[in-house]
């Protein structure tokens, strides 16, 4: 392999390497960005879930405290009934009661109780006696609901032994009211009830958590209160939430469909907050889109920047290499190859097309040494330049022109389709012509006359450059031996 082929291959390799570097860099950047992005997105999802779960957990605890506070206040309102004269000592079941006194006593108790609950949205605030007689505000709704079991079933609701009281709802599937019952004496209980709708102020949802469903359920997870419009009190909470919270008293559950928190209150009621995972991750999904778009943009920028950098780094090498190549291949004249490059190129062309006739024409400036000594480099170079110019004019269709020594130029000419004779005639014609056209005055006293002359020799052959060249050289030498300014073809 010739040197310029090696060099050309080197250039190709540099370009290929440069391309591979760009592709490789792009792949590394994209993979890295995608990896980091995927990691970031996953982490963001987890963080979002964690954040929402801690928020819902905190809110759940707050709602539980609100409910506890509301219920505690209701219990205190019931305790206040003890401040009413006769409220806990009067027994309406006592058959020995004087009817007139009983009417006035009950009227007074009712009036006093009414004052205590004056500002409350209580449905019931009164006393129920063992004979189902009522004093105070005991609504028709309650009387109708409990019927003949008014006292018996209300008494059963006071199931806390320490304070002789208790909370209940869902009596005969009536989940629209919540009852608080406190035993006053062996024959009387005090009852307070309110609509579950009142809990709206207890379970008020912050605007930021408006997508969260807040539910209060009994021990069977039947809804006592719900912030969800479509929920029906008394029905069991939705199955997807139920499966997450069932059997748990105090927990944060990241379920398949919901993020739920549960807190038990009042013994066996539950405050359950749940947010669909889709809603939690809705923002995360939007954020994920943005992250991916940003990542794609960053990748694109990085790839473009990398490409620019690599090309800017690769170009100087290529430029330097190409410059060196040019400097090596051209020998002081434009498009005139150096000796080695002419040989390599001519050899390459002839080898590639071994059956084609090629002609090598050599022409040499006569009396070169004497001219150099006599007229100096400048004059000689002018003559050489003139020779190159005339060669280019004489052989416009040649394959290449080379400078094989200080004063010798070679032309490689291809038979483009002529017969051998025609080609030979053409070569002779041009060889003679180049010698004749070069013979002209140089404006100096050249040795041997005023004319600067050149001799030329040519050979035609196929397949072997060196052989053709050698024959052409012999022909040149023959021309020189036969006198100056002559042309010989081998």
């Amino acid at each position, binding site marked *: 392999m010739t040197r310029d082929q090696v060099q050309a291959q080197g250039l190709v390799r540099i370009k290929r390497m440069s391309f591979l570097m760009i592709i490789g860099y792009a792949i590394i950047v994209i993979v890295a960005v995608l990896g980091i992005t995927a990691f970031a997105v996953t982490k963001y999802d987890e963080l979002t879930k964690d954040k929402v779960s801690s928020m819902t957990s905190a809110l759940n605890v707050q709602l539980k405290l609100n409910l506890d506070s509301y219920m505690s206040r209701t219990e205190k309102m019931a305790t206040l009934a003890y401040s009413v004269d006769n409220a806990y000592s009067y027994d309406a079941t006592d058959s020995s009661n004087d009817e007139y006194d009983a009417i*006035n006593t*009950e009227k007074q108790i009712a009036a006093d109780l009414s004052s205590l609950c004056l*500002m409350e*949205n209580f449905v019931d605030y009164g006393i129920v006696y063992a004979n189902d007689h009522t004093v105070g505000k005991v609504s*028709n709704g309650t009387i109708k609901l409990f019927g003949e079991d008014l006292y018996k079933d209300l008494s059963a609701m006071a199931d806390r032994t320490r304070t002789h009281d208790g909370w209940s709802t869902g009596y005969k599937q009536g989940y*629209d009211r919540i009852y608080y019952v406190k035993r006053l004496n062996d024959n009387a209980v005090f009852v307070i009830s309110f609509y579950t709708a009142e809990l709206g102020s207890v379970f008020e949802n912050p605007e930021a958590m408006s997508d969260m469903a807040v539910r209060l359920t009994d021990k069977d997870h039947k809804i006592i209160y719900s912030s969800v419009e479509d929920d029906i009190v008394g029905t069991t909470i939705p199955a997807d939430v139920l499966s997450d919270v069932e059997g748990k008293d105090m927990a944060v559950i990241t379920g398949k469909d919901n993020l739920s928190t549960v807190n038990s209150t009042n013994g066996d009621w539950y405050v359950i907050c749940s947010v669909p995972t889709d809603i939690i991750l809705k923002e995360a999904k939007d954020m994920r889109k943005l992250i991916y778009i940003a990542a794609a943009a960053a990748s694109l920028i990085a790839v473009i*920047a990398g490409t620019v950098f690599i090309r*800017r780094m690769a170009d100087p090498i290529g430029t330097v290499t190409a410059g060196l190549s040019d400097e090596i291949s051209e020998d002081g004249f434009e498009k005139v190859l150096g000796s080695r490059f002419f040989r390599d190129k001519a050899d390459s062309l002839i080898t590639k097309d071994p059956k084609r006739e090629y002609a090598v024409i050599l022409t040499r400036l006569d009396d070169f040494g004497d001219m150099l000594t006599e007229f100096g480099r400048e004059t000689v170079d002018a003559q050489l330049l003139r020779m190159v110019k005339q060669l280019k004019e004489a052989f416009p269709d040649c394959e290449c022109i080379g400078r094989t020594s200080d004063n010798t130029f070679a032309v490689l000419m291809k038979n483009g389709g002529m017969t051998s004779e025609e080609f030979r005639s053409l070569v002779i014609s041009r060889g003679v012509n180049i010698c004749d056209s070069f013979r002209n005055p140089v404006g100096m006293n050249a040795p041997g006359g005023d004319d600067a002359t050149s001799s030329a020799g040519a050979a035609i052959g196929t397949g072997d450059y060196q052989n053709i060249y050698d024959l052409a050289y012999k022909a040149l030498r023959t021309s020189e031996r036969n006198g100056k300014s002559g042309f010989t073809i081998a």
Partner: protein
Amino acid sequence: MGIFRKTAAVLCCTALIAATGCGNSSKVKEQKGQVEISFSWWGNDARNKYTLEAVDKFERLHPEIKVNCSYSEWSGYEKRNRVWMTSDTECDVMQINYGWLTDYYNEGKGYYKLRELSSTLDLSGYDEDVLRYGTKDGILYALPIAMNAETVYINKTIYDQFDAKVPGTWDDLFDAAEKMRPAGIYPLSASSKSMWLYLIAYAEQKQDKQILGEDGNFNFGAEDFAVMIDFYAQLIDKKVMPLVDHYERIRLENEEYAGAIAWVSDAKSYFGTAVENGREIVIADYTVNVNDRPGEGWYAKPATMYAVSRNTEHPNEAGMLLDFLVNSREMAELQGIEKGIPLSRPAVEVLGEKGQLTGLQYDASQKMEGCALSELSPVLENERIIDDFFSACNDYIYEKAELDEAAESFADKLAEK
């Protein structure tokens, strides 16, 4: 190299801005503000439930408004209202009793002037002669919801069982009691206010004079109240009606009472179950003596009214809620004729479309409109007067005082007020 450096510089700057600049900028997210107004009413279970539902619908229609509700049964509500009104803590929108317009008028400082809410409250559905019930000194302070009157509801199914005649006269009641007494059934029943007004009707017919004079002051004296007390004692003694202190509405559903004196607006809550159970409930004539004109001694009034607090900080929102309560389709559908036939034309039109202008309550309204009833003065609804009257009655019934003593005692208390 120029481009190289510039590109690098731009990228570095972008990265720096992204890493530092954006993260530190402060953000302000506006929260949705809600105007909070309050709304109070009294009523039974059914009214509480549909009113809460209506408020919920209103809040959905106007998410910028939150309505805090305050409600209770009638018992004790008057006192609650008095506390609110005297402590300037009354609700922005209030259901008020007809009498309260006078009680809290306070020379025009009691309630908001409703015509000033014309931007949010549409009064075009009201006839001017209806609006006069809520007008004082030419200024509209309250919107009447429907007209109301005490009505005689009779469970004809029970009456028929005992071959008793649907009462039209006082004597008819005693005849029915005679037949039902062995079964422990009272032909009629009434809570204290209804009984008080029922006794007034009797006494006005008997004494041939009205309880109030044209000046609005009591025209009845001790001897007139003695008639009322004595007649009440007879009703109790002959088991025509139970003592008001022993009155329990559930016994109406248990059919221990075969009838009731109750407001037109009470028809459904009192007899809804009986109607559902297939009982025939009829509206009896206003009870009179044989020769009296129909409806003599009986009174009608606006059932209840809506008013706006004079102290409201959100009059427009209060006006919007009030407009919703009297004119909206939603409220009309939910309320139906629970408070009587609405006086607002848009509400009546909705009820007409829905075919809700039927049933016992509608019949009671028709009966009321068919008689020329006197306008009930708010004074006659004063709970303290009523309580004092029945205390005097009890003194007489339980032999703690003679009839004239009891009547004098009550007359004296009345004079003190």
